[in-house]
């Protein structure tokens, strides 16, 4: 490591002399990255081999150093290189033959255009992007829950790249697609970008609102969003300015908090995104109607509804049960719960959560005959997962219920509930067994109800006290959060349907007695029910894990509704706010206004839109340089600026600053088409060079900063995995949809499941899709992929590091999937009659070349003695297969 740095600085001395923008004193400065972006003059032609500007800039630098381009690589080597670079897969033997046979000077362009037009291109480059933004499908903290709906962002990425979406739109949609293009459902999926990072479920959902700990969790979550945005799009380390002005770059503390303020309204959350336009319109219509009904407005003329309402009222009369709510006069808890009686006579249990509890509700019932008691347990946004229970998942367990009227225990002979948790049925609440109970898992988050039938009707001549005791002895806080009690005199309350007393009263009137107002009330209720049914009948919307300011609260995780206040914090300390932060971006990009002036607005959307526009502004010198450098890196294995995410003083200096600016301006001005950039790069003479050693180059520039040759590179984990499956002919090219889980899961002791890669069937269909569709589990990564350098998505990974280790060797040798695939490759070659024929075919599939005679003999000999599958396994472990030359 130390040696590398020394080597680099000695080279940079050479560069500084040649470099127009370099800081002469320090040899390291961020000035180059902030300087105005103008297209540099092309150097005078020094290369006789190519007129392309890329080659002119590179060869100018080489010539000055006394070097020249390496000879072009063999056609087969170039082909394999460009296949891996553009689509992440090796060429088929047929494609190889066609290309070698095509002697036209246009042969290279034809290959490149075909690859750029292939849907495989988007799959390859989306995976690079997913590294940069640390895409994964679990939350990544202690409670590493699964994100069922992260994948639409990945699908959007692949589509956007395949369509060659202009870079301006590509950026803007990821930051604020939901605001910019509300009519485009995929624009919501694009904002999945902001939610890629880890999310601290236990702090966000567990900690009370308003506490310092909660505020810290919110600041950290916004830090995650702004870091990924600024590192990815502008290659700045703005997160270094969280506690103090940036130590090395011109980024003041205020800029950092201006960016915090941009994201002050959003949280990472599942949000709906609808693809079917008819459904979108119908849902919008029904939502508008629902709103009108809630406000008491009839969307249709009353007269037109009269007949329907009369029928409906009859139905209600025949089916529903009139319930009278108990008005609690006294509430008791044996373990210190406190209660709040809400307007609707329901009771909210609060205070320190006890392990177990028993509630007693006392009320007065009117004279008459009572036949049953109803217990409604109600969802409430203040409860974990919206209740109705107070345990951490929103469940409760009712061990037993006792009803006393006038001091006498009333026998209950039957109970029914609208939902029963498996093994926790309602009968268990009337069995006098404290250990058995009624529960509602997994239907937390919804209201439920149970009706308890009195064995004998209770007839009261006068008003009498009633006491209902709910014992909840299961433990671990499984107590009811919000509930309501009611009684009835109905003879057979089993057929309970859910209408309010007011509606029942109106429906109970004979038709002639009904007033205009009564009709209106019934009509509203009728339409509400119809509206609800219609909404429920719509296909449930697809969801994407993205960001939003509106969502159903889960425990203490609640939507902002309007942007939260963000303060500039002295030393990053939550206890030392200095001033209210104003939404904005980096002031060092002096060509663009860095404050958005939106601080007074209650809307969060415009803040993100303003940042999106700032990022793609033609004068955002960082953004245009950043993206072309990133693309260059993936083609050459080294960026023009080696530190892809740091264009600051502590980052690296550009090896070819003028080339960088030339590419940035060209890319920007021709519409920000990535495919344009790829095409120019891979068709250049620079890219076509051989990667073989050259004496002069090694002596003068051993790190190959000047690009006197191509860099040989180890394939990344996804390329290795996809190539292995392609070699056996089993690669499944189905695109998109939920990710392939290449592991077994079983219930864990807590939120995170147990993840088992070892015993997963190597022949399962999930194993045969491209690795970009692989489910990435943050805290339990795939051991094979990890050994091949696949990052665990906890941190932004601009560049992957691979190193050959014994553990990698063992994984490639002995992982069940690799071993099984080598058997499949052997099977697929078995149609070729002789071993002498199979070995060359294996070489052509794996290496894109034919074997030498000696290679053919030694591999054949081995295959003859030990089977062809073993020979395939050896080839899959060979450096030539795992490298791109």
């Amino acid at each position: 490591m130390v040696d590398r740095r020394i080597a680099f600085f000695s080279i940079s001395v050479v560069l500084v002399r040649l470099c127009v923008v370099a800081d002469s004193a320090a040899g390291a400065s961020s000035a180059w990255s902030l300087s105005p972006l103008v297209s540099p003059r092309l150097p005078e032609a020094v290369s006789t081999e190519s007129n392309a500007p890329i080659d002119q800039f590179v060869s100018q630098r080489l010539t000055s150093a006394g070097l020249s381009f390496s000879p072009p690589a063999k056609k087969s080597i170039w082909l394999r290189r460009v296949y891996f670079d553009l689509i992440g897969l090796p060429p088929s033997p047929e494609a190889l033959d066609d290309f070698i046979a095509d002697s036209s000077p246009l042969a290279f362009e034809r290959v490149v255009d075909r690859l750029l037009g292939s849907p495989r291109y988007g799959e390859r480059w989306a995976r690079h992007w997913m590294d940069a933004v640390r895409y994964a499908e679990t939350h990544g903290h202690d409670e590493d829950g699964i994100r069922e709906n992260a994948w639409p962002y990945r699908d959007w990425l692949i589509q956007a790249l395949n369509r060659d979406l202009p870079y301006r739109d590509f950026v803007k949609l990821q930051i604020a697609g939901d605001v910019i293009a509300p009519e485009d459902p995929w624009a919501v999926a694009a904002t999945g970008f902001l939610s890629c990072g880890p999310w601290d479920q236990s702090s966000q959902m567990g900690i009370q609102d308003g506490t310092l700990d909660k505020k810290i969790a919110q600041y950290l979550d916004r830090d995650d969003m702004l870091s990924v945005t600024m590192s990815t799009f502008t290659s700045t380390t703005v997160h270094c300015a969280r506690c103090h002005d940036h130590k090395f770059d011109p980024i003041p503390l205020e800029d950092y908090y201006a960016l915090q303020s941009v994201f002050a309204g959003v949280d990472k959350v599942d949000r709906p995104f609808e693809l079917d336009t008819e459904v979108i319109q119908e849902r919008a219509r029904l939502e508008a109607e629902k709103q009108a009904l809630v406000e008491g407005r009839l969307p249709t003329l009353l007269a037109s509804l009269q007949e329907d309402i009369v029928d409906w009222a009859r139905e209600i009369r025949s089916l529903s049960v009139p319930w009278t709510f108990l008005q609690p006069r006294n509430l008791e808890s044996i373990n210190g719960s406190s209660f709040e009686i809400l307007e609707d006579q329901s009771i909210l249990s609060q205070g320190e959560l006890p392990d177990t509890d028993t509630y007693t509700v006392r009320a007065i019932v009117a004279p008459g005959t009572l036949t049953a008691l109803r217990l409604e347990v109600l969802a409430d946004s203040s409860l974990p997962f919206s209740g109705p229970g107070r345990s951490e998942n929103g469940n409760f367990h009712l061990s037993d219920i006792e009803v006393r009227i006038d001091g006498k225990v009333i026998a209950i002979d039957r109970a029914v509930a609208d939902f029963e948790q498996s093994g926790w049925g309602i009968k268990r609440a009337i069995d006098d067994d404290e250990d058995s109970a009624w529960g509602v898992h997994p239907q937390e988050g919804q209201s439920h109800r149970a009706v308890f039938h009195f064995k004998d009707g209770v007839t009261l001549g006068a008003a009498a006290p009633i006491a209902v005791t709910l014992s909840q002895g299961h433990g671990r806080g499984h107590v009811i959060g919000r509930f309501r009690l009611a009684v009835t005199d109905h003879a057979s309350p089993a057929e309970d349907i859910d209408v309010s007393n007011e509606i029942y009263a109106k429906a109970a009137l004979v038709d002639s007695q009904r007033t205009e107002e009564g009709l209106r009330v019934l009509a509203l209720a009728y339409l509400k029910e119809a509206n609800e049914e219609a909404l429920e009948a719509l296909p449930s919307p697809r969801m994407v894990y993205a960001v939003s300011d509106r969502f159903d609260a889960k425990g203490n995780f609640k939507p902002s509704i309007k942007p939260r206040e963000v303060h500039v914090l002295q030393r990053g300390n939550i206890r030392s706010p200095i001033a209210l932060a104003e939404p904005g971006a980096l002031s060092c990009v002096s060509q663009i206004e860095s404050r958005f002036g939106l601080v007074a607005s209650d809307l969060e959307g415009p803040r993100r839109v303003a940042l999106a526009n700032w990022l793609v502004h033609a004068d955002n010198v960082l953004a245009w340089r950043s993206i072309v450098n990133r693309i260059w890196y993936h083609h050459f294995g080294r960026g023009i600026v080696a530190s892809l995410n740091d264009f600051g003083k502590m980052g690296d200096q550009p090896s070819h600053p003028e080339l960088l600016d030339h590419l940035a301006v060209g890319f920007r001005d021709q519409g920000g088409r990535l495919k344009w950039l790829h095409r120019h790069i891979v068709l250049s003479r620079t890219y076509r060079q051989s990667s073989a050693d050259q004496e002069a180059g090694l002596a003068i520039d051993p790190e190959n900063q000047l690009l006197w040759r191509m860099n040989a590179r180890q394939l990344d984990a996804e390329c290795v995995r996809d190539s292995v499956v392609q070699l056996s002919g089993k690669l499944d090219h189905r695109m998109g949809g939920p990710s392939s889980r290449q592991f077994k899961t079983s219930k864990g002791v807590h939120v995170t499941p147990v993840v088992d890669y070892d015993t997963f069937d190597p022949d399962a269909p999930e194993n045969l899709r491209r690795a970009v569709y692989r489910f990435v589990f943050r805290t339990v990564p795939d051991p094979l992929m990890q050994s091949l350098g696949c990052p665990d998505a906890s941190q932004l990974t601009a560049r992957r590091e691979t190193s050959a280790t014994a553990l990698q060797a063992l994984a490639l040798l002995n992982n069940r999937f690799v071993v099984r695939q080598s058997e499949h490759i052997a099977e697929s070659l078995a149609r070729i009659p002789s071993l002498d024929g199979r070995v060359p075919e294996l070489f052509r599939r794996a290496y894109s070349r034919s074997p030498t005679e000696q290679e053919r003999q030694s591999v054949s000999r081995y295959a003859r003695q030990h089977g062809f599958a073993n020979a395939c396994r050896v080839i899959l472990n060979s450096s030539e297969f795992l490298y791109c030359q």
Partner: protein
Amino acid sequence: MMIQDLSRRDFLLRTGQGFGGLALAHLLRSEDALTGGAVGGIHHAPKAKRVIQLFMNGGVSQMDTFDPKPRLTQLNDQAFDPGAGQLVESVTGSPGFKVLASPFEFKQYGRSGRWVSSVFPHMAGLVDELAFLTSMTSPTNVHGLGSYLQNTGFTLPGFPCVGAWVSYGLGKLNKNLPEFIVMPDPDGLPYNNLGNFSAGFLPAKHQGVVINAGPDSNGTTPVPFLFPPKDARQITPQSERAGRELLAQLNGAFAGRFPSNSELDARVSSYEMAARMQLSAPEVFDLKSESAATKALYGLDHEETSDFGRRCLIGRRMMERDVRFVQIWSGAGGPSNNWDNHANIQEQLPFMSRQVDQPISGLIKDLKSRGMLDETLVVWTTEFGRMPFSQGEAGRDHNGGTFVTWLAGGGVKPGVAIGESDEWGWKARSPIQCYDLHATMLHLLGVDHERLTVRHQGIDRRLTDVHGRVLKEILV
């Protein structure tokens, strides 16, 4: 002959006879040659060569083990009030904040007179070997964040743990085994799963190699992918040997085409190293050569102690073979079967302590009698402590305010204790942070914690962030 027909040992002996052109005798020689080899710190001479860390997952109660609080007995069952209007909080709820006296008896032990409760009778006999940090603190009371902090120095995911930093900073000490090995509780991974053993932004080769060394692990591979899968149809010892030769030939030829590319040479040697690992790794786990007395010392002859004892004994064998950093976990994640004793201290704590007490003292005694303790650092720790007041029936909630860690072995002053907690064991009076512990561990290994840095996303990251003080008071 198919691999299924062979015992692992046969397989090894057969494959070992000459794959990749390397003879068994040669392999064993090179192993011997390294025993007692270079120690090498990077900033100063080290006191310890390797580390064995025992992590008690869930938060060990300090006032029921090593930090007695007689005041709690006086206040038992009264509402906890630290006075001065201090806010008393509890992350998962402790109704009434009723003070809970320790149900365990404390006695003084050794020349140092250290107080130890009845839950650790074996460790009590060793207090003169240990250096206690009795006022460790953690700013978080949440398991996930707390274990990240104690392992990586940060509460967020994505940072390298101590073992990874040590592997990165000091490089390889042995030739045939991984540098950093983790043996989780066979019941399951701890909070944060593999996140606690991550290499973060360091190269992946520095992450902890997780090994299943549980009671049922006989016959499974001690290192991931060490041997071909059982259902591999064509793999035999002969095919393995010849396959390695063919691979060495192909890879050697390819590397020869790029003489300047050292990574290709490294690939060739990685397969040689893999072969050596196949030979030496199973031997580490084979306890046949250990005497009955040694096994009994670790409690292998009792069901309660046999699992943790077995892992401690394997840990010692790894230390003997110069694995640089070994981490052994007691307790899985989740709400039970670990040190997270919310419901009832009197029942839950002894259930855990009985499993580890004898094995840990066996480990210290064994290392000492073999003359290895001088160059082995032993660290016993947890993610936080517990509250002075009760929860559930008679349990205790999480408390980052103060807890106990101890160190022993290479360079550590035996029989001392530093740091003081308040009269209730609620908060530390002289806080010691994970950064101080980590700085001290690195120091003992010959590493200056301020100078072991890696540039990541524009920041020179270090294990101790911008903190850390080497605890000179506990150094020899």
